[in-house]
């Protein structure tokens, strides 16, 4: 299964990677692992130290909010967004 992934510009412009990618997997976790094998720098920006999607990062699979275990169908569209909740400064 191959999915198309779109990343937000606030991430891609700073770390210097493209906004659009393709990766394969049966679940979102597998798709992300495939993506990270191609673009390793993305792993720690999207996942925390425990391997979870970061708290203020939203991932949608075919427009539905998704987590690591969400099934990914053929030709799925995966969108990564920054959550409004992350706009709060911690300091």
């Amino acid at each position, binding site marked *: 299964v191959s999915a198309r992934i779109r990343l937000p510009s*606030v*991430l891609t*412009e*700073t*770390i*210097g990677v493209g906004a659009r990618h393709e990766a394969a997997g049966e679940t979102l976790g597998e798709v992300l692992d495939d993506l990270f094998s191609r673009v*390793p*720098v993305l792993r*720690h*920006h*999207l996942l*925390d*130290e*425990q*391997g979870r999607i*970061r708290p*203020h*990062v939203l991932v949608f699979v075919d427009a539905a909010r998704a987590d690591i275990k969400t099934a990914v169908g053929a030709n799925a569209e995966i969108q990564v967004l*920054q*959550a409004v909740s*992350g*706009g*709060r*400064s*911690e*300091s």
Partner: protein
Amino acid sequence: MRRIAVGTEKGGYLLTESSGGTWMVEGPQFPGWKVSAFGETSGGEHLAAVASNWFGIGVHISPDWSQWADLGAPPVWPENTGRAMEQIWALHRDGSRLWAGTSQAGLFTSDDDGRTWAPVDGLNEHRTRDQWQPGFGGLAAHRILTSGEQIWVGISAVGVFRSDDGGTTWAPKNLGVHPVDTADDAAAPEVGYCVHGLAQDPRDPLRIWRQDHRGVFRTVDGGDSWQRIENGLPAGFGFVMWRDRASGRLLTVPLHSDENRVPVEGRLRAYGSDDDGESWTVAGEGWSEAPQFTGVLRGAFDGDDDGNFCFGTTGGKIWITSDGARTWRELQPAFPRIYALSIVR
């Protein structure tokens, strides 16, 4: 042509002085990301520590302060600690080794110019860690001094730790400093001190000056004991402690108090000491007579040991001097809250 790198709550900026005395602004670099610290590699390349409210942290490298590349593997907490990395507070280089002080009071080292990092477990998992309490900015290891096998690290709101064996073992060094959460002057707990800024005499590394939450202090024995030195200061609170290598002059920027982190009566001034901290006076002239109710944070002060100093405010303005802190002026451009400044050398 002078240049100043500026790290702010929202992006990095590069200021370049033109021949007419105006300053050109390049940026924002890292748009939307906090730029929390600057550093340099053993090869003279520049480093910027960045943090996102969404996407974790990064360490970027540049040959010219203009073109940046993500190094890809910043310091992160081991999975079994359960901690999350939110920010690098300080980058410090000693020879070929880089040190990073981080959120959650982390200390990390890199021996490949920031490409990979290892946690310093002797400090990060110190036997007193379960007593460590965060300050307003969270638990933060934010100041790092080194001299051979001796290393000092300042942690808010925990205190100063020293290692005498290159970072393997650590001991708290705060005797004589007032702890942060007690009114008992005689209390001397092991931890619970809120160091804000540290500066060291490179000719005598055991001589260190400390801007603390609870006042200004000096040690002449590497932190084994501290003495209060506030004669002439309008307030003991503040974040900055800077020592000019060329002249030996000390500089700090006093703020009113813990609960009121702005200059006393809005009189934003750097204060200097030419006698080792025994006495302090306003450093030079050119200061605004209009009230400046803004703060200056610990990383937002820099000097180049050639008479140039600058600092940035929480209100996003930059003050500079090029004559050894005799005359100061405020630059026109305004920025978001400033965390880090670096005079480009």
